[in-house]
């Protein structure tokens, strides 16, 4: 198999592949956005004082973290219609399943970030008369967020790679398009090689960006310079 042959397949199916890439990227972003919010709610739930709130939140997080994403996908798409009586199209099911998985990991990421904030910060905020929701919003979360960011971005990389399984419920992502090309050309080796390289390049871009951003973040020391805008 020559390089030209491989490139030929890339070129011939460029529209299909580009559509696939578009779907993959869109899926990963949608799932991640949902997971960022749901994960925060779940995380605050696991930190709640009331056991009635805490127990279901912990159960949710553990369930998300300890079931394979493929199982979650099939479960959401084929079991939810009977269990909860709600039927989603395959794209929505994919977003939900991917978000389910990521939200569990993000909840843990958030919890670690929140618990890393010094107790003195919370006591200072309490002494100034802040209630728990206010001190979370104004003091703890902004500081914790900076520390969580590398973890959140890494989870995005994981989520991105996980999207490749959604083809099994016929979502037209990159992997699904590859399957179509294979059935049209009967050339699994070059096509799947081309797809592997495409995933590799995409993920490389994302994870390099993550690494770059993580290095840019202030390591604990925070903002070292003056802010010149009006206070």
């Amino acid at each position, binding site marked *: 198999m020559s390089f030209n042959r491989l490139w030929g397949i890339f070129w011939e199916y460029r529209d299909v592949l580009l559509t696939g890439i578009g779907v993959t990227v869109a899926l990963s972003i949608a799932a991640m956005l949902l997971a960022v919010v749901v994960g925060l709610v779940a995380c605050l739930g696991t930190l709640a004082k009331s056991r009635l709130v805490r127990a279901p939140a912990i159960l949710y997080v553990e369930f998300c973290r300890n079931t394979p994403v493929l199982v979650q996908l099939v479960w959401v798409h084929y079991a939810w219609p009977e269990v909860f009586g709600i039927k989603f199209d395959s794209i929505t099911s994919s977003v939900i399943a991917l978000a389910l998985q990521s939200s569990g990991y993000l909840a843990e990421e958030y919890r670690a970030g929140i618990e890393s904030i010094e107790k003195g910060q919370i006591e*200072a905020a*309490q002494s100034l008369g802040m209630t728990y929701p206010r001190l979370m919003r104004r003091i703890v979360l902004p500081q914790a967020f900076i520390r969580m960011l590398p973890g959140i971005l890494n989870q995005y990389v994981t989520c991105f790679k996980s999207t490749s399984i959604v083809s099994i419920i016929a979502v037209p992502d990159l992997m699904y398009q590859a399957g179509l090309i294979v059935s049209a050309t009967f050339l699994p080796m070059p096509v799947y090689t081309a797809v592997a390289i495409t995933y590799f390049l995409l993920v490389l871009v994302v994870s390099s960006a993550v690494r770059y951003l993580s290095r840019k973040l202030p390591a604990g*020391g925070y903002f*070292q310079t003056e802010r010149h*805008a009006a206070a």
Partner: protein
Amino acid sequence: MPPPDPAIRFEKVVKRFGPLEVLRGVDLAVPGSSTIAIIGPSGSGKSTLVRCINHLERIQGGAIRVGEVTITADGLESGGRRLSGREIARHRTGIGLVSQSFNLFPHLTVMGNIVEAPTGVLRWPRAEAVDKAMALLRKVNLEDKANAYPATLSGGQQQRVAIVRSLIMDPPIMLFDEPTSALDPELTGEVLRVIRDLAIGGRTAIIVTHELRFAREVASHVVFMEEGRIVEEGPPEQVLGVPREVRTRAFVNSILE
């Protein structure tokens, strides 16, 4: 305005951390507008005593009366009614706490640190809070640091900002928990001056400190604690000058040496 004379009274206060009894039935009256210094070896319970006043630590026995509010093992009550979380938070706005480790918020500028509670908790207009903050920063010689982040300040500067952050809400009670213990010796002077000249100012103040000279200078009453009990209390000349108790004498001498 809060009541003008918010005396604090401890009645047989007991505090435990698990099996460890940190306060073993402490009785102490703090008259309104007076300044009290608490001294004693580390682990004697003096910091814990102060932190119980604004309910950062729960007590297991006895009662603490702070103005209209009574703190017991069951929580806070006023006029026979339990206070909600929100009311406890409101109660704390009348009690400034300056701690050993400053605890400035690192993601906010000096100005942001100072106006956070007045604008967020007390709902002052921002401009009013900023004006008052600038006036206080001038008094502690830090007006040029308003837009700096805490990480760029020295310990002494950070502690002065922390004091201003409490003072801006004009609390009738100020608590100082070893305010200079984390500072380099050459920086303690500037902080002690601010405490003496600005922070105490007619308020009810309790200062936990190892600075005996300072205690003697500002306090009307000195309390010596050891192992969760008050061993000796009285005017500074007596407790620090001619202590009656052997343990007080040993402690005072160990510090002065």
